[in-house]
């Protein structure tokens, strides 16, 4: 009996040892800090999912007002029901549904502004660093103008004239953010252009376009991607702030920043109306920054100087 038992336990231990060995060998190939990375990716995945499928997954119509259901308590309060998980606002609209629909706005802002400013800035930085000359000096003067350009104030100015609209916010933030990419790419190209592989490519007669797109661009992609990830929090907070002030998302659009503003009047008695959207903004911005930091450490530890 006892022999059999010890045999079983030995087999078990053996099997366990093998699995754990295999697991260790496999996990060694995972990047450093992978458990945290999984958390970041899970949060971002949830955000993406909510943003993409918002129209199908909201439990209620996020814009539907209802006097009967106004100011329902969230599920953790004594009066709360799971029908309205985060409760309802002063007009009887479901907070959870509005939160999901609001992630669509944040996602829209991110997927337009970040690629827009990235492409614009990278192209200008590549050409300025490679061709030098008058284009370079002109581009660098433009970057200086941008540094002094009060984009936030300007967004308010445009909103004052034309009414709040997400489209204007997107255009203004692209015009504001391109310069950081241009400066970064230009600086890297200036050091890359002296390297042997560039000389070699030139010797065999590569054209300017080919040199920039096939030889220089792949070498700056890492830093550009890191900067883009770190910009997620800037874009999210900028849109939320403008919407909070009534100069961001238009009247029909649901935005986390606007939800904070809407809950303000009830701050004393129902702080979760402002608390929930605020914490959501914070989590996405925080995870964006953490992901950017992780990516920087992973791709190139020497790139510590990006922000």
């Amino acid at each position, binding site marked *: 009996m006892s022999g059999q038992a010890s045999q079983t336990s030995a087999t078990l231990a053996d099997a366990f040892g093998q699995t754990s060995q295999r697991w260790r060998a496999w996990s060694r190939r995972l990047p450093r800090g992978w458990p945290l990375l999984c958390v970041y990716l899970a949060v971002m995945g949830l955000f993406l999912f909510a943003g993409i499928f918002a129209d199908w997954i909201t439990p209620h119509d996020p814009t539907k007002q209802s006097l009967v259901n106004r100011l329902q308590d969230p599920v953790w309060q004594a009066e709360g029901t799971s029908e309205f998980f985060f409760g309802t606002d002063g007009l009887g609209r479901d907070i959870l549904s509005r939160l999901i629909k609001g992630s669509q706005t944040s996602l829209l802002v991110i997927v337009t502004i970040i690629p827009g400013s990235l492409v614009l800035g990278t192209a200008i930085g590549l050409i300025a660093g490679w061709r030098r000359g008058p284009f370079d000096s002109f581009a660098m003067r433009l970057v200086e103008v941008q540094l002094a350009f009060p984009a936030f104030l300007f967004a308010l100015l445009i909103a004052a004239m034309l009414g709040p609209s997400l489209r204007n916010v997107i255009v203004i933030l692209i015009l504001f953010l391109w310069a950081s990419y241009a400066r970064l790419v230009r600086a890297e190209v200036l050091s890359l252009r002296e390297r042997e592989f560039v000389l070699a490519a030139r010797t065999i007669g590569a054209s300017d376009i080919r040199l920039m797109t096939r030889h220089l661009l792949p070498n700056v992609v890492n830093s550009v991607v890191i900067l883009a990830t770190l910009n997620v929090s800037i874009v999210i907070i900028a849109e939320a702030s403008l919407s909070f*002030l009534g100069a961001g998302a238009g009247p029909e659009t649901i935005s986390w*920043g606007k939800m*904070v503003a809407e809950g303000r009047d009830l701050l*004393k008695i129902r702080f979760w109306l402002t608390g929930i959207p605020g914490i959501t903004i914070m989590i996405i911005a925080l995870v964006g920054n953490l992901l950017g930091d992780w990516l920087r450490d992973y791709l190139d530890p020497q790139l510590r100087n990006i922000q």
Partner: protein
Amino acid sequence: MRSELGATAVGRFLRSIAVVFGVVTIVFFMSRGAGDPVSRLAPIDASQQEIEEAKERYGLNDPMIEQYGRFLWDIVRLEFGQSFRATRPATDVVGERLVATIQLGAAGLFVAFAIGIPLGIVAAVRRGGATDIFSRIGALFGQAVPNFWLGLMLILFVALYIDFIPTGGRTSPQSIILPAITLGSFPAAAVMRFTRSAMLDTLQQDYIRTARAKGLSERAVLFKHALRNSMLAVITLLGLQVGNILSGAIIVETVFAWPGLGQLIIQSIVATDYPVVQASVLLTSVWIVFINLVVDVSYTFIDPRIRTGAI
């Protein structure tokens, strides 16, 4: 030496003028390109003829280049037209609010640097220690919390419980406490991270080793050698933060009902008082450029290497 310094200062000044000119040009063409203000500002029952008359009166039918010239000339004379709401020159209305905003901005910067610099120093000197870890976590949060929300949470959890601290307004000296903390939190994180990395860089320099080798006390090494040299980098950050502080102030002022420029801008947007918004935006940009100029020039004073073009 002296004339060199003068030449640098003049050069920077000319460049600042070019930057202001650039900002003004962008504001003009984007605001005209974005649409015509008269159609939006006109009352709903205005007839087509009245709209046309208003356009004529504001010169919106003239050639673009003529409008641009007039716009530039108006700015040179600081002439932004009458405030629609207050029926006074827009410049006067803006000027009244400027003091409150400068006060708040200065207090916010003070909070940022008073928190950021000491924490950054300690974090760098005791790298990996408790202060380092906690202040880096703090900085992560500081850069992720939207400041309008932080302001509301401070009202909720501090002002409503401590009678001494009001929830808003500008009535007593202590009413600046919460707005200044809210405004300073984001730049404090940047200042902390920046001071930390500047300090870490400096501490690895050869002259620090020399200073230690010749038997200076750790205190003298830190304060006389390391700190002084890393503060150079921190001063540049000051210039960069002024713009952030101003946009932050607009938000914080609305949260705390602080009667400054930001609140004025928001009220003017609601009231579609376009001249006041334009005057505030342009005056603020000029101010940002001016501060950057001052920081640039003072930087040249502090670090002779920049003067001689060594960096």
